[in-house]
């Protein structure tokens, strides 16, 4: 049987390129890494790093960067093909906080020294970043943030708290929004600082989450001294950098190919579950329709993404377009993983964490580990419509564009 693969059309002149990518993904990505991705386990710095080093060695460290900063200078189709082929081959995604988020902001707003200091280490995967934006009192209303930085000679002294900081436990650097002034509009007194995580006064505490993965943290900052040279852009204009970054955060080309791969996996799962049975059950038909709708949605999302990237490259991208894509894809990812949850059924929901294995004893488990990982993923994916701006906030952004006010 064939469940149609929504993005199977080939782009003629790029066939050779696709083949080159395919061979690279085949031969260079270690099987152990692919296994982590294939079975939906959490990808940590270690897997990201190994893959980034391989890509860097091949000259493909930054598919989305211009050549002058060591990027590939690829065009739209090439960038998309890269994501499609690597996702199909179960290679890990690239770590986004450096390459996708702060890297382009440094290119745009940074001094020559900052570019020379930070960009090469993002490219070769030797330095790892995290994003310190949200605070306990500043989530959707990010501009109300309170963490303060006060100038003291040629240093800033930071005091405050960040929350929901993904990857802080494994990061070397944090780009963070701080308040440098309380005058004027609340957006006006915000600055963007680049903070080494080993600076004295920083404490990282994990937040236990429903998915049982260690992903997010609280970050406490107590008299943290950072050189003024680590201010990105102009003091008090950090909001501009933050918006620049958020628009890009919503436009990750990896999202759709990963969704396509997930749709494929869910299709395989459904088939495996239905195999051997006699007549297909009503529940299988219901699941199948949900799957088809999601697959068609992936095909549409692909076109939305391609046109958004095109507009971004031409500098005409409207905020509503990237928000629409974020809104749509986050919802779609939840639909797909929701189907997976229903296929896996009650049994696996009851077996999320293997407590015997956690005690270190060796007991053979008959639970299919990749199905358990799908349950973790289901729980983790609740955050898809929260992190990076909630769906409600995206809708506010889009509505402003649609209604012209």
């Amino acid at each position, binding site marked *: *049987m*064939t*469940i*149609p693969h*929504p993005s199977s*059309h080939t782009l003629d002149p790029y066939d050779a390129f696709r083949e080159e990518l395919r061979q690279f993904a085949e031969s260079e990505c270690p099987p152990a890494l692919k296994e982590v991705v294939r079975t939906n386990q959490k990808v940590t710095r270690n897997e990201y790093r190994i893959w980034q080093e391989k890509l860097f060695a091949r000259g493909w460290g930054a598919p989305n960067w211009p050549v002058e900063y060591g990027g590939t200078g690829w065009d739209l189709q090439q960038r998309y093909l890269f994501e499609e082929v690597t996702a199909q081959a179960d290679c890990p995604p690239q770590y986004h906080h450096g390459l996708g988020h702060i890297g382009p902001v440094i290119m745009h707003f940074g001094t020559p020294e900052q570019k020379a200091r930070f960009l090469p280490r993002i490219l070769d995967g030797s330095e790892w970043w995290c994003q310190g934006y949200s605070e306990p009192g500043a989530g959707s209303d990010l501009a109300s943030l309170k963490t303060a930085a006060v100038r003291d000679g040629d240093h800033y002294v930071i005091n405050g708290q960040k929350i929901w900081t993904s990857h802080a436990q494994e990061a070397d650097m944090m780009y963070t929004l701080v308040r440098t002034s309380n005058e004027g509009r609340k957006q006006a007194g915000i600055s963007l600082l680049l903070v080494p995580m080993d600076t004295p006064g920083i404490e990282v505490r994990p937040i236990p989450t429903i998915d049982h993965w260690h992903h997010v943290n609280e970050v406490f900052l107590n008299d943290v001294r950072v050189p003024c040279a680590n201010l990105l852009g102009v003091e008090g204009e950090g909001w501009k950098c933050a918006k620049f970054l958020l628009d890009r955060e919503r436009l990750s080309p990896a999202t759709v190919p990963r969704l396509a791969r997930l749709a494929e996996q869910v299709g395989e799962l459904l*088939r495996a579950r*239905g195999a051997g049975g006699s007549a*297909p059950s009503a529940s*299988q*038909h219901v699941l*199948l*329709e949900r799957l*088809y*709708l999601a*697959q*068609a*949605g992936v*095909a*549409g*999302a*692909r*076109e*939305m993404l*391609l*046109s958004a990237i095109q507009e971004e490259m031409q500098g005409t991208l409207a905020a509503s*377009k990237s928000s*629409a894509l974020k*809104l*749509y894809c986050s919802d779609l990812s939840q639909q797909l993983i929701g189907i997976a949850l229903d296929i896996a059924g009650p049994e696996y929901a009851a077996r999320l964490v293997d407590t015997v294995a956690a005690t270190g004893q060796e007991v053979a488990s008959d639970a299919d580990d990749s199905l358990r990982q799908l349950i973790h993923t289901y729980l983790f994916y609740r955050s898809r419509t929260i992190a990076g701006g909630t769906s*409600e906030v995206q*809708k*506010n952004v*889009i*509505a402003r*564009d*649609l*209604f*012209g*006010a």
Partner: protein
Amino acid sequence: MTFHATPMFPGDLYDTTARVAAAAPVTETFESQEPSETWSQFLQLGWQGVLIDEAHDGAGASLGDVAAIAEAAGRHALAQPLAARCAVVPLLLAGLPGASDVLRAMAAGEASVCPVLDTGPVPLAAVRDGDRLTLNGRLHGADLTEPATHFVFVATQDDGLPLLVLAPRDAVPGHASTWLGIDGRQTADIALSGVTLAASSVLAQGEDVYTRVERASAVGGLLACAQTVGAIGAMIEQTIEYLTTRVQFGVALATFQALRHRVVEMYVAYENVRGMVRRQVLDLCEGPAGSAPRDIALVKLYLSVTGRQVAESAIQLHGGIGMSRELPAARLAMHALACSLQWGDRFAHLDRLARPALH
């Protein structure tokens, strides 16, 4: 600047169709023997010949061109049978020796062929005897919103052999019941008992008939999707316009977040289906035809669900006036709903997709 829909296939065909469609009056009277003013203009413009090859005096253009026409017509909820007569019939008849004359007449706007491809409850039985073909049964759901000079349909012989039959309108007398559909489309069921035609009315037979019907209907479905994209774009524009001008509680409705968010959902759905349909049309123009019906089924399934959701939102957001047949947005909603059901509804396409999937 407020939202304005961007056509999938901009150009002359889109602009011209949109202009004619915008001026089209709404009629609800059944089967006049005269074509409407709107339809006459389309015939003169040669829209029936867009897909017909140049050897038959057509334009030999691509599916993207018909999709442009469909989208523009969809923006105005036009009930005229554009997909049926400008795409389905030309595809059904392409390359058939017996169809040369009628294809030429179609391209010239002198003939108009109504396809009747739904089997319906009483299938047509055919008996061939020398140079005569005798038909018994029923033509089910013939779209006669505009007059037709011919019917094309499938009849089945005793031995199960399917025949593709082209019959002049006058040669098919019979008792007809006529219907007005949810979007102003007008159809007829025609009961035939012992109607005889020349054997030369059979244009194709056997497996070829199924292949042609499946492919032509799939394209009909895709064009219904293009009409839906046009209708959705216009529904969003009109809904925004209404919410911006309608005042309740002393403020414009457009200030209420619950309403804004529902419009956003319509818009995000629009961007998605627009991309999806456009890509499918382009792929069909460029790619091999083999896998087309299945890919189209996926798109049609999605559009059937989404078109209906958006239509229901448009009505709800207009409040009471959303129930009025005079409101363009309400007619667009009915049009989207009709398109979601035509050329195979959600479940027909789900069945098509699922058939090989679970066995």
